[in-house]
């Protein structure tokens, strides 16, 4: 069964001059963790707002839990958990007050659904009398998550919950999401961080309103055309420039310690050929190895096509 379906959803702004979402279609299976991966301006928030019935699409259909987002919005609004970007909570209410308020909003109580949020709540419980505005980014995330879960929704929509938060807190947050998934909740998350993609069951890569690919992360990686090589030397920036000038290079990008290199015509000899080229340029300390592409490599590749 599909918790969420989108068919050819299109959304424009400013009297049609801005095309934010361009014929987007995908499905989310029940009980899975689905990631919508893409940079700012890709259309993630617009899609989320359409799914949570806050915006009407110009074209296309979408359903959430079997309900149509346009006609049955009331039913959807009763049953989903939604956190818009940048954890919008009431800054001048305490942790406790925020939770209590959101619970009552949905006719639930903290006591009723405590089990649902227990794992997360215990981390912020010591600060329950502190005003939400005075929490750190990581704590705000956790509070926002609790507030979205407090009424035991069947689906959770989280719009960029980890943006602007340091890598460690981000990792912890995804651990929490995994545990929630184990309780049977369908979770749809958006993020600009490519490294978080592998933590999802299924991902949709999106850029400029268009879906680049929808699949399980490792299938997307397997679909990477050709080989990818990691290259390293003492002079990285110079190496980057030289490799870009090499006529057999299809793409060469910096990836932390290494450069990731792919060729136009991938042959078994390609690696040796480029090494020769670099030796001619005077490099003596080249390290070159084949490497498995990551989601970011796939994203960049898909953008180029």
């Amino acid at each position: 069964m599909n918790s969420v379906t989108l068919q050819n959803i299109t959304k424009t702004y400013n009297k049609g001059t801005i095309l934010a979402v361009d014929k987007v279609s995908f499905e989310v299976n029940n009980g899975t963790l689905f990631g919508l991966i893409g940079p700012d301006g890709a259309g993630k928030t617009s899609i989320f707002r359409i799914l949570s019935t806050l915006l009407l699409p110009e074209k296309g259909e979408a359903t959430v839990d079997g309900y149509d987002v346009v006609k049955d919005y009331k039913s959807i609004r009763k049953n989903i958990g939604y956190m818009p970007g940048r954890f919008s909570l009431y800054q001048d209410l305490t942790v406790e007050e925020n939770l209590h308020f959101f619970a009552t909003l949905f006719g639930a109580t903290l006591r009723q659904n405590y089990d649902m949020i227990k794992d997360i709540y215990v981390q912020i419980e010591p600060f329950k009398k502190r005003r939400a505005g005075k929490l750190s980014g990581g704590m705000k995330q956790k509070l926002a998550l609790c507030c979205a879960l407090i009424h035991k929704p069947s689906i959770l929509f989280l719009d960029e919950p980890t943006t602007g938060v340091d890598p460690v807190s981000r990792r912890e947050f995804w651990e929490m999401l995994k545990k929630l998934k184990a309780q049977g909740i369908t979770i749809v998350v958006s993020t600009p961080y490519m490294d978080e993609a592998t933590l999802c069951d299924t991902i949709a890569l999106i850029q400029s309103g268009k879906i680049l690919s929808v699949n399980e992360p490792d299938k997307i990686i397997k679909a990477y055309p050709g080989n990818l090589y990691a290259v390293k030397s003492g002079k990285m920036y110079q190496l980057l420039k030289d490799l870009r000038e090499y006529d057999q290079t299809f793409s060469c990008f910096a990836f932390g310690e290494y450069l990731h290199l792919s060729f136009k015509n991938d042959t078994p000899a390609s690696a040796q050929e480029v090494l020769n080229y670099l030796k001619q340029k005077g490099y003596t300390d080249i390290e070159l190895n084949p490497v498995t592409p990551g989601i970011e490599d796939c994203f960049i590749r898909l953008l180029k096509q």
Partner: protein
Amino acid sequence: METPVIKTDKLTKRFGAFVAANEITFEVYPGEIFGFLGANGAGKTTAMRMLCGLSKPSSGTATVAGFDIYKQPGKIKANIGYMSQKFSLYEDLTVLENIRFFAGIYGLTNKQIKEKSEKLIQQLGLQKETKKLVGSLPLGWKQKLSFSVAVLHHPAIVFLDEPTGGVDPVTRRQFWDLIYDASETGVTVFVTTHYMDEAEYCNRISIMVDGNIKALDTPIKLKEQFKATSMDEVFYQLARSATRKAD
């Protein structure tokens, strides 16, 4: 040893009883790309503000571009570039207007402004966009333009506060190309980021935890020190020991 562009000695900032930055001591050398990392709330922004002359330290000393941060904050501001994610350019001014405005602020003569703006526009390939409002440009272009404007007056050092947040992977790398270019012309780059792969592009990195600098070295040496295979792991090890999680 060259004269450091930034030199701090036990720089501290207190807000009441809370010590946001504690006895920060480090040096940054000309032409370096220096990565300034830390979790949210670790004290990065506080430290950066002090170095930019935007916030007065509670104690300790520091010089930036040779100027004392207590006595000469104005001179510091005139000799640095600054770019943050939150504010970069005026969305309702055109590309050209923005360039001219900021160039003017930094005290460039009309002749200099003309030369530099033409050069910049060429470099970024924005010849067709000069009369467009910055607000209408894609995010990536805005970021690149922002950075170029921040170094237009060839400052000794440019401070970048999470400049690539939320930007797509290709644009991110193009941005770093610009950083490399600037670094090669002698501009020192002081950058904070949440992307650990970007930490690898830096010459040296410092990591702040709970207001203190807990690590300061090249990426390679840090990975050796922490027996990690990536900066991600180094960061993770350090951040896990942090106690200041709620502030």
